[in-house]
């Protein structure tokens, strides 16, 4: 029941694509489900839950970007703007029509998907850096539009306050309550992505990424699949934006500027392009590393510096170490944290009898 296989023994495609290749996988799932649903909310302080909540939201957004960049090979610098589209759609629907979150959330995603298809149009003709610039233009146009159209932004301050999500008359507002709310959507996003990538659509995405002319020759409609990738990716981004909106209680486009797009790109590149697990690693890494570095520097730094110097030292060192760690990780393993993890796993799979 708890054994692992000592090599590759798969003989059918079905076995290769199974979500649970071994019984141990199912048991791990059960343990993790209990851990996340029962143990962690009981054990962790609200503060730690708040960090997990930020990671959950980041996972949803990063998964969307990885579908586009990692799986389909289309670069995008407009991910932050797609989040803001979702955020404002949901906020406007919630404030003006009084819709509940289970309607505003998919609506935000769908609106974002529609805009994403528009911004993704240039991908039909251009690739690589050219597409990066085209999507960068998309980011700036969306920012400008929200800033200058009061009907969307809700006035000069460009921010719309919304109420906390309610479920069956129960208001979700503490970090613990929001934890379950966000956990649900993070798990949903993970499961959907895993299955999407096992389907015909997912395989078509990968084919387009690896060689689009070849993909076209074997009968994949690359226009359709490129736009579909943009739509799905933007849908995730929109949902991520809606989650941020409910989490902070406000839609504000300054929360979704270009730097956010870059941060999410960093997450998937560090974690591993074209991998769900890597996306999760990346989201954890980018969210947690600054916090962990601060904690370490706070306790270690007080030995060497006075309090007034320490604040500057922490901020500066944190940034430098964060950058250096990214470089180190990518030199050690250019394919990201996911590959690193796989290497460790395949080493131990046959350990100690590796020959």
């Amino acid at each position, binding site marked *: 029941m708890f054994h692992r296989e000592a090599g590759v023994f798969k003989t059918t495609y079905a076995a290769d694509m199974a*979500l649970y290749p071994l019984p141990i*996988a199912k048991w*791990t*799932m059960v343990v*993790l489900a209990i*851990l*996340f649903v029962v143990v962690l909310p009981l054990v962790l*302080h*609200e*503060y*730690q839950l*708040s*960090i*997990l909540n*930020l990671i959950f*939201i*980041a996972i949803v957004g990063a998964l969307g970007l990885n579908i586009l960049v990692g799986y389909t090979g289309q670069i995008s610098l407009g991910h932050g703007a797609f989040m803001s589209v979702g955020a404002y759609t949901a906020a406007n629907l919630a404030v003006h029509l009084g819709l509940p979150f289970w309607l505003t959330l998919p609506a935000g995603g769908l609106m974002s998907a529609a805009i994403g298809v528009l911004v993704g149009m240039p991908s039909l003709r251009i690739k690589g850096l050219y597409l990066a610039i085209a999507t960068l233009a998309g980011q700036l146009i969306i920012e400008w539009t929200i*800033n200058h159209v009061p009907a969307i*932004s809700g006035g*000069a*301050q*460009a*921010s719309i*306050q919304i109420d*906390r999500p309610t479920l069956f008359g129960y208001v979700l*507002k503490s*970090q613990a309550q929001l934890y379950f709310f966000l956990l649900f959507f993070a798990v949903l996003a*993970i*499961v959907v992505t*895993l299955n999407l990538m096992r389907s015909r659509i997912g395989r078509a995405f990968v084919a387009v990424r690896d060689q689009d002319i070849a993909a076209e020759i074997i009968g994949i409609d690359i226009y359709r699949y490129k736009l579909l990738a943009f739509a799905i990716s933007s849908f995730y981004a929109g949902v991520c934006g809606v989650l*941020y909106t409910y*989490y*902070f*209680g*406000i839609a*504000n486009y*300054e*929360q979704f500027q270009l730097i956010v797009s870059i*941060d999410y790109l960093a997450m998937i590149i560090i974690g591993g392009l074209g991998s*769900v*697990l890597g996306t*999760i*690693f990346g989201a*954890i890494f980018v*969210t*947690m590393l*600054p*916090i*962990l570095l601060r*904690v370490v520097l*706070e*306790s270690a730094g007080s030995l060497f510096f006075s*309090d*007034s110097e320490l*604040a500057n030292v*922490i*901020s*500066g060192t*944190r940034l430098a170490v964060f950058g250096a760690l990214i470089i180190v990780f990518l030199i050690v393993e250019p394919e990201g944290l996911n590959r690193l*993890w796989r290497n460790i796993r395949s080493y131990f799979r046959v350990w100690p009898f590796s020959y």
Partner: protein
Amino acid sequence: MMRFVKSTLGLAVATATLAFGAGEAFAQQKELVFGLQCDRTGPTATVGVYLCPGYHDYIDLVNSKGGVEGYKIKVIEVDNEYKVPPAMEAHERFKKDGAVVEGLYGTPQTAALNKKLEEDKIAGTSPGFGTANAADGKRFPYTFPIAASYWSQAGAAIEFAKEKLGGSLKGKKIAYLFYDNPAGKEPLPILEDLAKSEGFELRTFAVPAPGLEMGAQILDITGRFKPDFVVTHLFGKAPSVSIKELKGKGYPLSKVIAFVWGGSEADIIAAGGMGVAEGYNTIQFAGVGKDFPVLKEIAAMYKAAGKAAPKEMDSTVYYNRGVFIAAVHVEAVRNAIKAKGGGVPTPEEVKKGMESIKGLTLDGLVPPMELTAADHEGGGWCQVWSVKGGKLVKSKDWFQGFRAVIQKQLAADASKS
């Protein structure tokens, strides 16, 4: 794959728990915790590196004199890099460590924390950040702008222009040069309102982010519109560019007034030096310069410890704002402790303490403001400091520009929502 997905998540959480558990601070008796968000590395680092040391130094000074009503103060600072998610993390950390009051940093961060502060019942101060309507304590009970909002600054700028132009603005032309973001657009309703009531012609000139290229707008202002006065509301490096460009086109800087984020020593020096910007006017919400007893006490404190006064003190505009924020926090806590007869105040009581701040002046470094449950702005007091003979000189003492117009706007905004 799912199992690894989940198992790694779990692992990370376990590490985090360990790391945080070790770093957890247990508040000793007679110690109060203040939370301070700061930006020392992000886009507004030019402000943060001066403002935050000012905050720390004032708290150190209070501690060195025995604390506030016998309580020592411990400041936890978190650098949010002007990003929103870390701001939420910072707030949760302050809450975990038992912070009684919190200094916010950044406009989007303030917006994102408004609701959380109210739910957690911890007062947060946002001088120069956040939205003007947060002055309304009934709508935003736990958000305290404590300094003149952009609406109040707009009122002050027009009042100053009116005074400079001989007491009447009838038939005059005023240009408003602003950064094209929500904060830049915020004063527009006040300016438009005043244009009608005072009878001047207002024209607005937007500068797109990042605000380093405004040649066309300046040419439009100086060559075509030819205004009698220019009001600028810019951020980051943009104020320096505006000084340089206006000067280059021969516009007299004595007819230019900048909002609060365009008037630090660093902005003026970056535009070519204090000597170049002769006449440039800046709105301030805290006193400028080193001529305050509290700053001398801080310098003396450093000297007593055998150290030189920190170089941050030379950037008096931002440093003094840090001192100002710290002084307001300390005063709020003092009021709360006094109201409780010396007992340990809760964050909610500190909020009430903040709402009873009155007569705190630090010999002119802090405006004569009066915070109440309804007015979290404290009256919207401003000073104008101008460049004269190579340094910033006070040219108009604390005043409230067109207070009635701002209050009307606040009421209108409240009835809208």
